[in-house]
C-alpha cells in the first residue's frame, strides 16, 4: 500500500512540492477582488429572510401568513406546507447509496419546533426592509412544551421526546477488545474521571450566504458559500425535481470549519426562486448564524484507565455521551469518530467503549473542525497525565511506553499501515518547549503540558468515497485543472496547482484551477474530513501523470531520446543530464495535437471501500489513515485572578509530505489557535435552549493579543496515503491543544480541571478561592 514517491518522479528532485510558495488565490484576496457569496448580485433580485421559532420546544398550532402576503413588495411567503418534500431523509454528502446512518433534515418546522432558531417560514421581498417587516407580520400561534436540555436527562425512557420517535437516543456504538475487568485487576493504578466539553461556535468570518436564480435552460442555479456542492442532490429532492436540474456553484468560502458542510441557505433559496421565478439572495446576520447553525457537540465522558506500576496501560473503559441537539444531522458520524479515537494513539490490551448521541432541544450539533476527535483527546490525554502523576513518571515517559507504532492495531482491530511518528512528535515538541520560564509575579505559577493525538484524514471507508479531477494541457503549454473542490481557505485549490505544476513542469502561474461548479467541474466530493488533498490531490496527480504519459512518445521522438530519460521542467522537455537538449513543451503539445493525441485526462481516485463496522464490537476499518502529532505548551496561571496566559506553544506533526509548507504551517498555526479558544474562552452558553452568546461580544474568539507565538515543527515521513506521501493536516492540527493546556494548568496549580473551557472562575474554584 505504501507509495514510494520515487515511483512518480523517477527520483528527480521536486521543483514545486515541498517548496513554500504563495498560494495562487492570494493575489485576488489582497486586492479585495475575490467574489464571495454575498459579493454577487443579479438584476431584479429579491431578498430572502427566515422566520425563526420563538421557543426551543413548542407545538405550532397555526401560522397566519396573510398579513405578510398582502404587503406590497412581498413576492412569496412559504411555510412547511409549501415545500414539496419537507421531511427528506438525506444522506449528507454521500455519493453512494450506502451506509447505515441517515441524517434527518427538515427544511421548515412543521407542527412542532425543536430548537430556538429553527426555521418556520420564508419570505422573499423586493428589499431587505420589506422582507424584515413581512416576517414581523407572520402570526405563529405556539403552545409551549417542556422540552429537555440535558442529554443525560434526555436518555431516560420517560423523558420529553424531542422528535417523533420513542427514544431520544439516536445511536449507540460499542468497542470491545479483551476483557477490561481482567485488565483493571492487573493494573496498579486506576484513574477515573468524568470530563465535560461545551458547545462551540465555528465563528467563520463570512456568515452563511448565497444567491439563486433560474437560468435560461430552467436550471435552478445556486451560488453559495458551502463546503459541499453535492447538496444539489438534496435540493433537487426537496423540490421533487431531477438532480440534473439543480446546479450549485461554490465561490471562495470565507471559512467553514464544518458548519458549511450541512445545508445552510441552499434549500431556502431554491424554494424562493422556484416559487417566484426571480433571483433571490439570502445572507444571515451574525446572530442568525450563531443561533441557528450547527455547533460542536458537547460531551460528557466517563473515563476509567488502568496501568501497571511501570506505566503500561492495561485497560480503558469509556462512556461517551454527546448532545446531538434538536436534529440528527451528522451526530452519528461524529460519534463514530469519537468512538474509534477514544483510546487515543495508545496500545491498550483491554478496551470497552460505549457511546451514545442524544437528541435535546438545544441548537443542533454537527461537524466542527476535528469532528469528534478533540473531545475525546481532551479526556484521554488528561487521563494519561493523571496516571503519570500517580506513578511518578514523566508525561513523556508514560506516553512513550504506550504509543501505537506502525503495524500495530487500534482497539477496533485496524492495523496502522502508514507512518506513525507520534513519539517523535512528542519528543521534538517538548525539546522545543525548553526550560520553564520564571514567573513574572509572586502570584503567578508556571506550568508545562504535553498532549498527543490522532485524527483521521479521509472520510469513513463505508462511504466509499471518490474524487475526480480533469487535467488538460493547452496548445501554448499552459495547464487547466477542473476539479469540483470547495476552497474554504485551506489552499484546497492551490495545492492542486502545485501537483499539476510538479508533474508537468509548468510554473504555478500558468496553471488555472477551476473549482466548485456541479455543472462544469468533475464532482470531487466534500471539503470536509480533511480529505481534499488526499482525495482530489491523488486524482489530480493521476490525471496529470496520464497527460504526461500521453505526451512522452512524441517528445521522445522529437528529442531522439528514450521516454524514461525525459524531464519536464520550466515548460520545456529535456534529456536528463543534458538540459541543453531541450524543446519547448508547447511544441510537443502542438505536435501531439496534430497527431490526435488526447491532451487531457479525467482521473478518479477511490479511497479504500469497506463495509460498515460491527456496532456491537467496533471491529473493522473505519478510516483510510490517521495523522499523528503533539502539542507542548507552557502557561502562566495567576492564582489571584485565575487568568491563564499561554507563554509558549509548540506544535509538532508528521504531515507526511507538505505540498506547500507555507500552507501546511498556516493550518498548524491556525489549528493551534482554534484549539486554544476551545481550551480557554469559547463556549456557546444555552439556558434551557436559549443562546446567551449570540455575538462576538459574548462568544470569545481569540484575538491577535490573545494568540501566543506558535512554533511549528513539521516532520515528513513521506508515509501517508495522499499524493507524494502526504497526510491531512487541516482538522488534526487543532486536536491536542486543549488537553496540553489543561495538563500545563494542572502542572502549574496542582489541581486538575475536568471541564472546558478553563475559565478564571473554574481555576479559582479549583484553588478553593471561590
Amino acid at each position, binding site marked *: 500500500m505504501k507509495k514510494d514517491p520515487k515511483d512518480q518522479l523517477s527520483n528527480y528532485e521536486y521543483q514545486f512540492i515541498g517548496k513554500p510558495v504563495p498560494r495562487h488565490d492570494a493575489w485576488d484576496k*489582497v486586492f*479585495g477582488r475575490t467574489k464571495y457569496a454575498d459579493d454577487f448580485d443579479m438584476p431584479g433580485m429579491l431578498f430572502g429572510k427566515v422566520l425563526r421559532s420563538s421557543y426551543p420546544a413548542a407545538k405550532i398550532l397555526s401560522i397566519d401568513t396573510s398579513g405578510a402576503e398582502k404587503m406590497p413588495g412581498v413576492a412569496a411567503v412559504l411555510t412547511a406546507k409549501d415545500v414539496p418534500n419537507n421531511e427528506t431523509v438525506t444522506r449528507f454528502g454521500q455519493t453512494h447509496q450506502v451506509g447505515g446512518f441517515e441524517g434527518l433534515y427538515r427544511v421548515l418546522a412543521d407542527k412542532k419546533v425543536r430548537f430556538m432558531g429553527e426555521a418556520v417560514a420564508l419570505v422573499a421581498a423586493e428589499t431587505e426592509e420589506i422582507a424584515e417587516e413581512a416576517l414581523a407580520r407572520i402570526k405563529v400561534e405556539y403552545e409551549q412544551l417542556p422540552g429537555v436540555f440535558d442529554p443525560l436527562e434526555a436518555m431516560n425512557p420517560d423523558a420529553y421526546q424531542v422528535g417523533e420517535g420513542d427514544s431520544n437516543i439516536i445511536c449507540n456504538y460499542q468497542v470491545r477488545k479483551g476483557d477490561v475487568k481482567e485488565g483493571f485487576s492487573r493494573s496498579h493504578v486506576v484513574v477515573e474521571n468524568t470530563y465535560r466539553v461545551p458547545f462551540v461556535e*465555528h465563528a*467563520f468570518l463570512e456568515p452563511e450566504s448565497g444567491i439563486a436564480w433560474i437560468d435560461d435552460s430552467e436550471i435552478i442555479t445556486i451560488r453559495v458559500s458551502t463546503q459541499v456542492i453535492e447538496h444539489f442532490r438534496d435540493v433537487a429532492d426537496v423540490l421533487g425535481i431531477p438532480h440534473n436540474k439543480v446546479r450549485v456553484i461554490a465561490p*471562495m468560502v470565507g471559512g467553514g470549519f464544518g458548519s458549511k458542510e450541512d445545508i445552510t441557505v441552499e434549500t431556502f433559496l431554491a424554494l424562493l426562486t422556484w416559487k417566484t421565478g426571480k433571483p433571490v439572495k439570502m445572507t444571515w446576520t*451574525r446572530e442568525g448564524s450563531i443561533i441557528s447553525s450547527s455547533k460542536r457537540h458537547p460531551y460528557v465522558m466517563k473515563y476509567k484507565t488502568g496501568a501497571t506500576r511501570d506505566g503500561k496501560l492495561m485497560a480503558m473503559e469509556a462512556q461517551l455521551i454527546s448532545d446531538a441537539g434538536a436534529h440528527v444531522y451528522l451526530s452519528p458520524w461524529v460519534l463514530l469518530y469519537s468512538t474509534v479515537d477514544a483510546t487515543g494513539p495508545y496500545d491498550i490490551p483491554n478496551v470497552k467503549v460505549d457511546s451514545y448521541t442524544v437528541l435535546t432541544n438545544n441548537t443542533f450539533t454537527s461537524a466542527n473542525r476535528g469532528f469528534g476527535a478533540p473531545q475525546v483527546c481532551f479526556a484521554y490525554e488528561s487521563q494519561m497525565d493523571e496516571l503519570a502523576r500517580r506513578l511518578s513518571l514523566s508525561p513523556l515517559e508514560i506516553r512513550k511506553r504506550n504509543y501505537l507504532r506502525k503495524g500495530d492495531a487500534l482497539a477496533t482491530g485496524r492495523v496502522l499501515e502508514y507512518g506513525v511518528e507520534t513519539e517523535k512528535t512528542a519528543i521534538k515538541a517538548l525539546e522545543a518547549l525548553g526550560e520553564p520560564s520564571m514567573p513574572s509575579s509572586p502570584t503567578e505559577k508556571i506550568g508545562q503540558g504535553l498532549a498527543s493525538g490522532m485524527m483521521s484524514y479521509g472520510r469513513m471507508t463505508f462511504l466509499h468515497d471518490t474524487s475526480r479531477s480533469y487535467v488538460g494541457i493547452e496548445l501554448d503549454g499552459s495547464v487547466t485543472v477542473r476539479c469540483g473542490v470547495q476552497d474554504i481557505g*485551506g489552499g484546497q485549490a492551490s495545492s492542486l496547482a502545485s501537483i499539476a505544476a510538479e508533474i508537468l513542469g509548468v510554473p504555478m502561474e500558468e496553471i488555472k484551477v477551476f473549482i466548485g461548479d456541479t455543472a462544469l467541474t468533475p464532482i470531487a466530493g466534500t471539503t470536509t474530513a480533511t480529505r481534499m488533498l488526499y482525495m482530489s490531490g491523488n486524482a489530480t496527480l493521476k490525471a496529470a501523470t496520464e497527460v504526461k504519459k500521453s505526451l512522452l512518445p512524441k517528445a521522445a521522438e522529437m528529442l531522439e531520446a528514450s521516454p524514461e530519460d525525459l524531464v519536464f521542467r520550466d515548460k520545456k522537455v529535456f534529456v536528463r543530464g543534458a538540459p541543453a537538449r531541450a524543446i519547448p513543451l508547447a511544441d510537443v503539445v502542438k505536435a501531439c495535437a496534430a497527431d490526435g493525441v488526447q491532451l487531457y485526462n479525467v482521473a478518479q481516485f477511490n479511497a479504500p471501500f469497506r463495509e460498515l463496522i460491527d456496532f456491537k464490537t467496533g471491529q473493522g476499518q473505519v478510516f483510510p489513515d490517521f495523522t499523528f502529532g503533539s502539542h507542548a505548551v507552557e502557561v502562566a496561571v495567576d492564582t489571584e485572578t485565575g487568568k491563564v496566559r499561554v507563554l509558549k506553544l509548540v506544535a509538532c506533526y508528521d504531515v507526511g509530505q507538505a505540498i506547500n509548507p507555507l500552507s501546511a504551517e*498556516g493550518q498548524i498555526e491556525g489549528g493551534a489557535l482554534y484549539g486554544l479558544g476551545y481550551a480557554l474562552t469559547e463556549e456557546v452558553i444555552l439556558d434551557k435552549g436559549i443562546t446567551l452568546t449570540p455575538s462576538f461580544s459574548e462568544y470569545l474568539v481569540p484575538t491577535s493579543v490573545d494568540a501566543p507565538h506558535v512554533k511549528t515543527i513539521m516532520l515528513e515521513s513521506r508515509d501517508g496515503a495522499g499524493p507524494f506521501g502526504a497526510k491531512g493536516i487541516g482538522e488534526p492540527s487543532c486536536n491536542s491543544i486543549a488537553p496540553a493546556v489543561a495538563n500545563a494548568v494542572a502542572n502549574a496549580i496542582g489541581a486538575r480541571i475536568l471541564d472546558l473551557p478553563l475559565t478564571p472562575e473554574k481555576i479559582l474554584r479549583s484553588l478553593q478561592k471561590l
Partner: protein
Amino acid sequence: MRKLINVTINGVEYELGVKPNLTLLDLLRYEVGLTGTKKGCETGECGACTVILDGKPVTSCLVLAVQANGKKILTIEGLEKDGNLHPIQQAFVDKGAIQCGFCTSGMILSAKHLLEQNPSPSEAEIRKSISGNLCRCTGYQKIVQAIISVPGRTEK
C-alpha cells in the same frame, strides 16, 4: 427620503443620494459596488469591514453613510497603484498571511494605518493594532510576520 452626500472614495468623487439609515458599509458594497470591504457581523465586533475614513480606521458597519459626507474614504480597492501591490499587500502574499481571505481587507487597512502612525512598531504594537480584526484561520502569526516584514519598517 434620501439625503445627498459628497464623498471621495479611493480618490474618486461621488455625489450620492442615500437613505439616512444606510451604513457606510452598505453604501460601499451595494451602492458603489466595492465589495472588497466585507460584512462579518454588522455590530463592530469582527473588523472585516474596516476602512480608512479621513485617515482613521473605522468599522464601516457602525458609521452611517451620511456621517461620511464631505470625507475621504480609502478601501482595499484603493491600495494598489496601476495594478501593483502595495508593500503590505505584497507582504501578505509572500508570507502566506492569507487563508480564506475574509479578514484580509480589514487587516491590511488596519496595518496600513499602524505603519503610517508608527513606522517601526514592535510585535506587541502590531498585535494590539490588529486586535479589532478577528481572523479565524491563521492564528494571526503569518499576518503579524507579514506586517513585520514590510519594507521600510525599522527594527526598534
